[in-house]
């Protein structure tokens, strides 16, 4: 166990960054900031976990940024039509349905994941705009409980972070102890061999896109919870952040490799980079530059120790 932790480069990068951050900014390790940081990474954390599962099977999901937006808009619109809980369920269902469409195209029609989810990214974004008529939609008063999801906390820990932790634990356990998890990993390594072992490759592949859609919808609700508004142009480029987090976590884009723990670390690393740079008053142009360089360094470091 100890050895494995020492060999975990993502963990090393994470700890290094933590150390550097604590020393360079005294605001970094304050309770406020840590709480903020957790709130900020929670939605992208959920998305990245879904993305990780998709990437494990050798796929990719570019539609997540659009799903975030579309689900947020849908929830806000529904808040005027149905009860809060019904709105929640229907919004999550929307995410699931979009994921199912991607999954169907990839698993059952053999469309390359990149292109299928790219098309859905466009379609779903358009849908979000159509539904909202292009303007942000404020959540109705009967559903303002959604704000709890974004800003509420239990014993000082943000609710959204707790939810993320919960999802993390479930996915961790499933990957390690459940037949389904074993199948996901195996498919990413050698699809044909898995098929010949009597496992329905299609069904498993389909399912990861559905999960990704679901988790992204959940993240979309969190985003609404932070602002109280469903915004159709939110989350542009988010898919790239999520993918970057997964890869910094050491996963391979060809599938079969990586752990959900490291994906979470990848999310935290990216979140911390953004946070500390804001704290250090680095201008946003410079931030982009530095972020790119850190991603490259992290990935090269990942490879170097292998």
């Amino acid at each position: 166990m100890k050895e494995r932790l020492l060999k975990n480069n993502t963990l090393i990068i994470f700890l290094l960054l933590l150390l550097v951050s604590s020393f360079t900014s005294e605001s970094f390790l304050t309770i406020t900031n840590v709480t903020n940081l957790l709130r900020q990474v929670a939605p992208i954390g959920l998305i990245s976990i879904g993305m990780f599962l998709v990437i494990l099977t050798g796929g990719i999901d570019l539609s997540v940024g659009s799903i975030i937006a579309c689900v947020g808009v849908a929830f806000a619109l529904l808040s005027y039509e149905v009860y809060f809980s019904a709105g929640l369920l229907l919004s999550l269902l929307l995410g699931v349905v979009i994921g199912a469409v991607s999954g169907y195209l990839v698993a059952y029609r053999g469309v390359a994941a990149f292109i299928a989810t790219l098309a859905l990214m466009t379609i779903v974004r358009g849908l979000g705009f159509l539904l909202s008529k292009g303007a942000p939609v404020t959540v109705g008063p009967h559903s303002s409980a959604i704000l709890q999801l974004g800003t509420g906390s239990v014993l000082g820990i943000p609710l959204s972070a707790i939810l993320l932790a919960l999802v993390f634990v479930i996915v961790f356990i499933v990957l390690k102890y459940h037949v389904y998890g074993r199948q996901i990993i195996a498919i990413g390594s050698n699809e044909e061999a898995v098929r010949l072992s009597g496992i329905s490759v299609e069904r498993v592949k389909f399912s990861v896109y559905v999960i990704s859609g679901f988790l992204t919808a959940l993240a979309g609700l969190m985003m609404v919870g932070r602002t109280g508004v469903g915004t159709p142009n939110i989350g542009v480029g988010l898919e790239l952040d999520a993918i970057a987090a997964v890869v910094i976590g050491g996963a391979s884009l060809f599938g079969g490799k990586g752990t959900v723990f490291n994906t979470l670390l990848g999310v935290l690393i990216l979140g911390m980079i953004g946070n500390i740079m804001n704290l250090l008053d680095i201008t946003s142009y410079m931030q982009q530059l530095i972020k790119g360089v850190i991603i490259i360094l992290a990935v090269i470091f990942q490879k170097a120790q292998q």
Partner: protein
Amino acid sequence: MNFTTPKHCFEMLVLKEISKSFGGVKALKAVNLEVRAGEIHALLGENGAGKSTLMKVISGAHKADSGQIVIDGEVIEHNDPHLAKVHGIGIIYQEFSLIPELTVSENIWFGSGKKTGWLNRKKMDSDASALIHSLGFAIDVKRRVAQLSIAQQQIVEIAKALSQDVKLLILDEPSAVLGTKEVKKLFNLLYTLRDQGVSIIYISHHLDELLELTDRITVLKDGKTVATLETAAADKDKLVNLMVGRELTQLYPEKPDAFPDDEKIGIEELRSGTSRQPMAFDIRKGEILGLGGLVGAGRTEVLESLFGVTHRPPAILRWQERSVSYRSPREAIRGGWGMVPEDRKKHGGILSLSIRDNISLASLGQVANQWGFINHRKEEQVVRELVDRLRIKVGDIHSPLSTLSGGNQQKVVLAKWLNRNLNVLLIDEPTRGVDVGARSEIYHIIQQLANQGMYIVMVSSDMEELLGMSDRIMVMKNGELQGTLDRAEFNEEKILRMAIGAN
């Protein structure tokens, strides 16, 4: 160390103290090898002995950690395949090294042709065509390699290696994917080359081939040279002894005299690729039904349509008064069928996954509870039992399958099916590329399964194996059944005649 090499050396190639490790694995430990000009030199050794690695060192695909390569008295230092070509080394790797998306002629000239500049496609095509003809084969050189059968691909590999003047030709298990006819042609070709003064290194696990073809044999064991002997002075027992360090017990298991009961599975309406007539045959309980024929005869396809792999209308199976057909491997496995596919790396095992995960993949239900959660302790116990039962040489069942030698990988793929209560096991080329020692173990396992009452269908291109293992042999040609022979009628020539349609 001080090597002085005489200028006019009898040896065309001399390897001195070559060592090579991959991370912690020492693949070669100071190997010495001498190959004379104009001889066919065999390299023999168990799976993982280091044969391919040694050849890759010669061809420049790997750089040796230490040691010397001397070609025609000249010490060469390289880790560049291109330089090796300049020195007149041609090689056919064990794994295919053709480019599927390029045509045959493009492949033949790829690398050996110009390194830069414009292509004269007409000339390339006609030259390639002439080259293949001169080897005694015929392939349309404008077809993409992806469209060729494996045997044809192997021929393209050979043509590619001979597309330039070679002084040394290395063939790493070339016969594994060739049929008897092609192997004969290949041997004739090699004789001609030898007579022209070309040195040849030939790797194979088929002792018969080596005894027939080669002039000298070098045996490699655990990355070290054990001995080099004149073929004339060698025999199978001696070679096996050198190779595995023990006497080989009987290669093929005892066959039972009779079958306890007369249960059978009737196969009807089986259509495979090129066949016009649907096939029909029986599989008997407890027997090993051998499926023979030339490469590309459609045997793999028969197994695949039984197992529901292909998307053609599935075969109809009549069994215990019921009539079923499987549309997917999943359905077949539910029905108690299993298949060990032909291509172990592509379809059989998952190389990056652990040995444990590979073995339990098809039977996760057995070690999981009703909610699908896996009991790791139970799983490992089951896996360990199978590893012991099949005598798979593993250090740690958690290390990836890729760390095992070919023979042991094959056993893992077999082990995968032994954890289920199978009724029927389909095995495609059970010992392709597997060394003699492991082969014998695999044969005994298969026979044991048959004795326990399993239905077994075994495809094999190895005539000896087919004769030694089968209770009945079905021979195919061009996707059609040519006939079935009982054990009493077994006869190599008869089978060959049926396979080429000359009966």
